[in-house]
């Protein structure tokens, strides 16, 4: 396809959308462009005659281009290489980490702090640098979490970068009638190139001459068998015809020359690659969940902040004070450590997966796999080994199954028969043996002639393989149990049955025969001439049939089975032929035993296909041709009606359409693939999984996850880990959210009741970012409560990460208990130092008066401002300690959502135990390390104040055990509905 052609196509599409939608033109334009790309590509370079071809590209099929003209074309079209997909600039990536919902809120809080500090300075009354510290801390928190997220992303990108193949490719080009070896990126349209076995095809070429040339198109079309390339146009579709070889496919054997018709991004591969980069990256389900919940949190924070801003103004606080209250409420309510927790939890799972050879490019993809409900799997190289392997043999009138496992560990057949020895010898001799050049396309069987190893036997052995019916034509005897028997009608029928059976398995069948040439006619030294055929080629002895298939990987059937128990539907989407696809699908269990297609039912009942009720057929095989004529509604219907689907002969565009259709039906779609043809679908999928060994770079680039060992079974591990992390993230978030209430209530009480401030902002940040991080991360190590691989995938619309029950239970129940614990401890500390609860009420303005150095407490003692300030710090510390003690109870109850903590075991999660120890140690360090009072406002508190909140901690634990017991005992009850999160 020429450049102008492709433009024409786009222009056409632009016109269409220009009429219809004017408003969202730009957005639509892009979409339409994609739509047009999704359509089949149409080029006619394969249909025109060579003369027309020469005309079109002003070239010669004997001498090639002239060097000067080639130079001009190169300048016009650019080098022959795929433009790397446009990456996001690094600074944008980093900036994105700093501009999330919560981050923005924290920026606002920091700015308020700065403003407050600035106003204080300008007034000349610096009561302290607290506001400044707080602003700096907030910014530091945002930046550090941002750096952390960026680092995670950067690390995984680097893994991918290492896959890139940097060796420049060479190509043999004929210019000015001379052969030159040049870099492949200098090739231009019209160049005459020569390829031979082992080369990579340097561009899309129209084949001019060919000598037994075969290419491996598996990465493009999914066909495992080598494809013959010859000068004739055999199909109107450019993808099917034999006279076009595609860029980046490999020439396996033979030689060919051809004219380049497309270079660089305009090649088929290039267009698929740009199709992939044009497909927008879908937001991962977990990203949607987190966004959903961050929005709610941010909204609530602003709502609370604003309400109390208004309340404060109404009560009569100054504007600046009210602003600081707003800021403090935002700081107290926003879970600063949450994003870090989520990132760490996800990267822990990513690490765990990496150990199992799944590399995750995008952290969030870890969870996506857990919510996956449909896997669209490519066949070749993903489900299968991508190498033709002997699957069945027919000899002695029996079909023998061969071992097709990767490591030859399976059961083998009985190899004692004489016939097997003969067949084996023929097969091994006929392997890449000499064959007649230029006649490969003629269905003449391959043959070769060998001396025998036995020195006494001077006969030559002629062996031959080929299409079974052709071979049979040349045979007059058949080898049965080592005996040559005449080939009568009965044997011929047996042969036919076997041939049909093997063909029906989707396997490629070859026939083998041999003959011992007469010693006298062909003595040693006889020159065999394959051109003149001066030897016997008929009356041979038929040895047997060997059928080959690209066998499924050993681990796949089991993995598919596990996916099914986990409620995940596996759909096969391949470029290969329907029969082969179906055979493999049946083999690996994508089409389960006993499932029938509409066609099967029709044959069984002997009725026309149209009369079969579609819903009766569990399985369905649709090929690319049928798919082309289907509307998207019909496709949706097909996917809805048939649980077991196989799509064969699909183009990359169609793969994309299938993925979209699944997504329309509300599924979360995983796509596995290895070839370039899979890359658009990989990109479009909620999670794209590429094969690490067999996978092409394009596939790896488009994927979110890479299976380093190409083991499909790793996906099952991934699903399990994904589901586990979803459950555990829920627990982590519930744990993290709970403490926001005891952080918030002190401010609310402070503003409304005017008690001395019970908890400072810096202390809150210490809870959020120091002591509670490790326990909340440790919940990621929690074992599953039930067999998660026997549950259905979660419904993305119903089963939210943070649902109402979770928020309500955390905020209004556990959080409320924690608040009461904090206030009990606060009033205790105040009362024991001389400030009775009732005196505290309304004390605020005097308490905070810097000039008042002799404020009387309940006993009549007089306190200076500093003494009161340190007492306030004591209160902060006491409140902090209360939250810590309650959070220990909280982390214990969050271990399970349904099971009793006793059933789950307290010490099984070692990380959690050490996290609690760590939390206590850190709390003690903050309290008792010298110098803390003046740096971080922590005071060495009396030991007994640690124990005041203990009853509340016990209450939390007991209450949650009761809740779980009721949830277990009475599923579906009011209690279950309201209190199970």
């Amino acid at each position: 396809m020429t450049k102008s052609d492709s433009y024409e196509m786009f222009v056409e599409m632009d016109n269409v959308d220009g009429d219809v939608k004017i408003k969202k033109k730009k957005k639509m334009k892009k979409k339409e462009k994609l739509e047009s790309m999704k359509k089949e590509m149409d080029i006619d370079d394969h249909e025109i005659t060579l003369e027309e071809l020469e005309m079109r590209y002003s070239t010669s099929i004997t001498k090639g281009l002239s060097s000067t003209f080639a130079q001009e074309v190169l300048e016009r079209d650019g080098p022959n290489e795929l433009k790397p997909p446009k990456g996001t600039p690094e600074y944008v990536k980093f900036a994105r980490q700093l501009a999330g919902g919560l981050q923005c809120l924290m920026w606002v809080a920091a700015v308020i702090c700065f403003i407050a500090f600035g106003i204080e300075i300008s007034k000349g009354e610096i009561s302290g640098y607290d506001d400044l510290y707080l602003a700096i801390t907030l910014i530091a928190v945002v930046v550090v979490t941002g750096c952390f997220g960026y680092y995670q992303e950067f690390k995984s990108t680097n893994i991918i970068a290492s896959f890139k193949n940097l060796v420049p490719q060479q190509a043999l080009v004929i210019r000015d009638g001379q052969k030159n070896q040049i870099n492949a990126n200098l090739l231009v349209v019209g160049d005459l190139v020569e390829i031979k076995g082992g080369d990579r095809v340097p561009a899309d070429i129209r084949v001019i001459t060919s000598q037994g040339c075969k290419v491996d198109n598996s990465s493009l079309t999914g066909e495992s068998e080598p494809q013959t390339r010859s000068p004739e146009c055999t199909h109107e579709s450019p993808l099917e015809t034999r006279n076009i070889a595609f860029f980046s496919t490999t020439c396996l054997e033979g030689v060919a020359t051809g004219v380049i018709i497309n270079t660089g991004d305009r090649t088929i591969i290039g267009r698929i690659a740009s199709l992939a980069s044009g497909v927008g990256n879908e937001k991962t389900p977990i990203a949607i969940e987190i966004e959903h919940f961050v929005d709610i949190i941010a909204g609530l924070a602003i709502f609370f902040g604003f309400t109390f801003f208004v309340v404060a103004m109404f009560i009569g606080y100054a504007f600046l004070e009210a602003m600081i209250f707003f800021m403090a409420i935002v700081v107290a309510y926003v879970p600063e450590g949450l994003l870090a927790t989520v990132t760490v939890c996800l990267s822990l799972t990513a690490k765990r997966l990496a150990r199992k050879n799944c590399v995750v490019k995008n952290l969030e993809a870890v969870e996506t796999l857990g919510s996956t409900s449909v896997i669209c799997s490519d066949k070749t190289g993903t489900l299968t080994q991508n190498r033709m392997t002997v699957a069945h043999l027919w000899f002695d009138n029996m079909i023998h199954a061969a071992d097709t496992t990767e490591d030859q560990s399976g059961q083998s057949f009985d190899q004692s028969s004489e016939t097997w020895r003969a067949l084996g010898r023929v097969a091994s001799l006929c392997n890449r043996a000499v064959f007649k050049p230029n006649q490969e396309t003629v269905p003449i069987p391959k043959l070769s002639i060998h001396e025998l190893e036995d020195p006494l036997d001077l006969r030559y052995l002629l062996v031959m393989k080929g299409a079974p019916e052709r071979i049979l034509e040349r045979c007059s005897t058949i080898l049965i149990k080592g005996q040559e028997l005449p080939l009568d009608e009965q044997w011929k029928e047996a042969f036919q049955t076997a041939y049909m059976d093997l063909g029906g398995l989707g396997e490629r069948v070859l026939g083998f025969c041999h003959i011992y040439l007469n010693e006298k006619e062909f003595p040693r030294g006889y020159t065999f001439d394959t051109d003149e055929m001066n030897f016997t080629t008929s009356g041979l002895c038929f040895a047997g049939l060997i059928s080959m298939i690209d066998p499924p990987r050993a681990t796949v059937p089991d993995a598919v089975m596990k996916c099914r128990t986990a409620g995940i539907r596996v759909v096969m989407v391949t470029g290969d032929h329907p029969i082969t696809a179906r055979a493999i699908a049946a083999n690996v269990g994508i089409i389960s035993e006993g499932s029938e297609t509409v066609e099967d039912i029709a044959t069984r009942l002997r009725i026309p296909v149209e009369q079969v009720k579609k819903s009766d057929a569990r399985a369905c095989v649709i090929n690319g041709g049928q798919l082309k004529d289907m509307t998207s509604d019909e496709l949706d219907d097909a996917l809805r009606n048939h649980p077991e689907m196989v799509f064969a002969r699909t183009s990359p565009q169609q793969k994309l359409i299938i993925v979209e259709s699944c997504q329309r039906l509300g599924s979360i779609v995983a796509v596995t693939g290895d070839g370039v043809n899979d890359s658009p679908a990989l990109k479009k999928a909620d999670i794209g999984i590429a094969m690490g060994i067999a996978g092409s770079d394009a596939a790896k680039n488009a994927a979110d996850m890479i299976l380093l060992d190409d083991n499909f079974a790793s996906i099952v591990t991934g699903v399990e880990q994904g589901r586990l992390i979803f459950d555990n993230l829920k627990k982590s978030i519930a744990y993290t959210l709970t403490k926001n209430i005891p952080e918030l209530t002190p401010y609310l009480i402070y503003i409304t009741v005017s008690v001395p401030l019970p908890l400072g902002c810096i202390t809150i940040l210490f809870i959020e970012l120091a002591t509670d991080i490790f326990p909340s991360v440790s919940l990621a190590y929690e074992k599953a409560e039930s067999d998660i691989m026997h549950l259905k995938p979660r419904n993305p619309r119903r089963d939210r990460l943070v649902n109402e029950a979770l928020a309500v239970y955390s905020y209004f129940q556990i959080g409320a208990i924690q608040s009461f614990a904090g206030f009990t401890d606060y009033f205790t500390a105040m009362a024991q130092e001389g400030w009775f609860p009732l005196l505290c009420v309304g004390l605020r303005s005097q308490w905070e008066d810097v000039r008042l150095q002799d404020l009387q407490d309940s006993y009549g003692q007089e306190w200076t401002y500093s003494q009161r300030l340190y007492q306030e710090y004591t209160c902060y510390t006491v409140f902090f300690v209360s939250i810590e003690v309650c959070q220990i109870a909280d982390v214990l109850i969050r271990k399970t959502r349904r099971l009793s903590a006793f059933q789950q075991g307290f010490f099984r999660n070692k990380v959690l135990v050490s996290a609690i120890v760590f939390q206590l140690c850190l709390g003690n360090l903050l309290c008792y390390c010298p110098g803390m009072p003046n740096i971080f406002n922590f005071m060495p508190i009396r030991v007994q104040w640690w124990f005041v909140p203990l009853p509340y901690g016990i209450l939390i634990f007991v209450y949650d055990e009761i809740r779980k017991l009721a949830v277990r005992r009475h599923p579906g009850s009011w209690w279950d509905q309201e209190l199970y999160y």
Partner: protein
Amino acid sequence: MAKGDKKNEWKEFFWNPRTREFCGRTASSWGLIFLFYLAFYIFLAGMFILTMYVMLLTLDDNKPTYQDRLATPGLMIRPKGEEMEIIYAKENTESWDTHVQALNSFLSPYNDSVQEQKNYACKPDQYFKQEDSDSVKNNPKRSCQFRRSILEDCSGLTDRYYGYDEGKPCIIIKLNRVIGMLPGKDGQAPSISCAPKKYKIGKDEWIDDTDKMGEVAYFPRNGTFNLMYFPYYGKKAQVNYSQPLVAIKFLNITLNTEINVECKIIANNIPNLNERDKFAGRVSFKLRINSRN
């Protein structure tokens, strides 16, 4: 279209006439959840009140459980002035009248008549301890007299303007009350000593206003707090406690200059060097007397 849908969705969420749901719940569902939370919070509040009650039971009426912050008692001056600054013009009566008023009202409970009527003339120079016997509380406790006249020239009895009109102002220093505090060990009474405050003018260069401050007179003599005023037993047990005062009079202060004065308590068991708290065991203030001559 989509906008209308969303609006409808909200409307439906707010009040769904089909299912009779308000904000996603029916009336009975709301009632149930309300009852649940009512019970829950009543229980929590009950627990809170119980724990608070138990905690309050442990408290002593007369002595705080802990006095962690009050190791060093605070010092304070009267009159306080604005921001610890006493600035006035000698000739301008209005500029110092407020200070005189403040001192008058501050000293009125110390009038000799009031003191003699309410308080007990204790034996000076020793602690006035009134310990409780094991079971019987020795309440109410008596307080020692602190007569205003002890302050002599600064009592406002002889000089009703406390020297403000002459440019020889009196400043009264009081020690914060702390229950059970016994300042001064071995019978040595704590005393106040005032000195010009050192301030920094450059790197490692400190100066003070010694020459400008001139002589200072202390009332009572040596600026001591007599031991008999200690210990303090709290406002409940010792209702009429009069905390001891020390007055200082600047006798020949340089006029028309700002002078920084720092007064410290000198007692062998009170640390007064707390860097952070500028009022613990010390007090500093700024004094400036303007005059036309």
